[in-house]
């Protein structure tokens, strides 16, 4: 720790780097190489934000854990900057409904989290296994009917999380493709401002109508129980439902498709997994670490002036944590760039860290385990139908993944 403050002050003399976004050609699973270079010099370095402001970038594992666990780094939206340029107009923060607890600090955040946590405990999630299996089997039936080859993104990776999330929340199944589309638009860094506002408004309108309907006729799904059993207001319920829907879709979809692509490109790991199905749980954690699909953020803002790990942090400083960089830190994970199902180490921070750590992590793991297992079992000869170099990736998205994955069997 002795050299870090020197490194930080030396870095102030040269122009601070920008947030790296370009992955190396032929390495679709590896974060942009600049992250490793930055981490080797200083795990928490100065960074230039898109419009010239200077803030911080965290690339080291321990540093990332420390930042995300420290409530002096606030999650409130005021003063937050995106590490990458977001095209279009900024969303009007005052127009957002209350209840969007991802942008809150304790104790406000704690109240919402406590009302929701009961639906995402280990026990509650295990009870959903049969339901998830039924959904996955139905999706695989559809793949078989469509016949080889298919685009795994459209036929597998999108429908499974969409169906699981809409069933869990109690949203109408017939609108799930619209939900899926609108959430995608909101997560894309290349959507126009008009597109984002259109999707935001449509989602908001649909969810508000749904909250009103559940108020009139309560149901026994998650949203229905929040309506009946809590004192949450309708705008709060809208905000909560929005967060849960958004959180449940993009991340899981991209883990599903990118994970299968990674299995194809690591045949020895795939063979080990096929030979020993009990390897699935550690394999899912290793894929979560290796792929760390949330590639932009989380972002925090310093709520006060303080010294942090030998650095002087000033109130208002914006801090971006790179989860892919942290999860490839060789100081924490030996041979960190290797996909190794024998690693048996679930200490990664692909779900974040601190009080905002993904509430649905048990559900995400279960979905991934059930979906990968059933896919490999149903199609013993499953393979990539196009050259790997041609698989289009999603660099300009908050969540990394593949745009299409043509598979054959």
């Amino acid at each position, binding site marked *: 720790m002795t050299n870090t403050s020197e490194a930080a002050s030396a870095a102030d003399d040269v122009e601070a780097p920008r947030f790296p976004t370009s992955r190396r050609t032929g390495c679709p699973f590896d974060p942009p190489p600049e992250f490793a270079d930055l981490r080797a010099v200083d795990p928490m370095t100065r960074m230039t934000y898109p419009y010239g402001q200077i803030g911080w970038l965290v690339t080291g594992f321990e540093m990332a854990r420390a930042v995300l*666990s420290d409530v002096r780094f606030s999650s409130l939206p005021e003063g937050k900057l995106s590490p990458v340029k977001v095209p279009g107009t900024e969303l009007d923060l005052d127009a957002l409904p209350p209840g969007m607890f991802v942008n809150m600090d304790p104790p406000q955040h*704690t109240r919402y*989290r*406590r*009302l929701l*946590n*009961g639906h*995402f*405990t*280990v*026990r*509650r999630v295990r009870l959903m296994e049969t339901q998830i299996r039924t959904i996955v089997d139905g999706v695989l039936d559809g793949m078989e009917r469509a016949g080889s080859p298919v685009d795994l993104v459209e036929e597998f990776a999108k429908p499974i999380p969409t169906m699981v999330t809409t069933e869990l929340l109690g949203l109408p199944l017939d609108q799930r493709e619209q939900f899926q589309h609108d959430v995608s638009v909101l997560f894309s860094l290349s959507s126009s401002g008009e597109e984002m506002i259109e999707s935001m408004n449509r989602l908001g309108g649909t969810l508000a109508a749904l909250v009103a309907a559940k108020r009139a006729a309560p149901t026994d799904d998650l949203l229905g129980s929040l309506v009946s059993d809590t004192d949450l207001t309708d705008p709060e319920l809208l905000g909560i439902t929005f967060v849960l829907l958004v959180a449940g879709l993009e991340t899981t979809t991209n883990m599903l498709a990118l994970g299968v692509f990674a299995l194809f490109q690591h045949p020895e790991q795939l063979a080990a997994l096929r030979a020993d199905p009990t390897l699935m749980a550690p394999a899912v954690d290793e894929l979560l670490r290796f792929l760390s699909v949330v590639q932009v953020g989380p972002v925090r803002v310093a709520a006060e002036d303080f010294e942090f790990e030998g650095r002087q942090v000033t109130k208002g400083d914006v801090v971006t944590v790179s989860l892919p960089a942290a999860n490839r830190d060789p100081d924490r994970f030996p041979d960190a760039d290797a996909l190794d199902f024998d690693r048996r180490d*679930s*200490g990664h921070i692909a779900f*974040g*860290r*601190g*009080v905002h*750590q993904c*509430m649905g*992590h*048990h559900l995400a793991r279960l979905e991934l385990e059930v979906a990968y297992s059933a896919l490999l079992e149903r199609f013993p000869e499953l393979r990539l139908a196009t050259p790997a170099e041609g698989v289009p990736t999603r660099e300009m998205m908050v969540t990394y993944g593949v745009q299409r994955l043509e598979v054959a069997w």
Partner: protein
Amino acid sequence: MVITIQVDEDRCCGAGTCVLRAPEVFDQNEIDGTVVLLDEHPADDRAAAVVEAADMCPAGAIKVRRE
């Protein structure tokens, strides 16, 4: 050696990571998902699991003392 575990229900964010690591020692409250300590002094052979659970707790709500 005696292992003593302390949990801080106020800090707990209900992630349930500890329940996966050491289900014999930790459980979750069904209402709000917060930690329920089942065994304040777990046996030595659980030491590795409870230390891991404390390390992985996203809110830092678990303290393990060994003496």
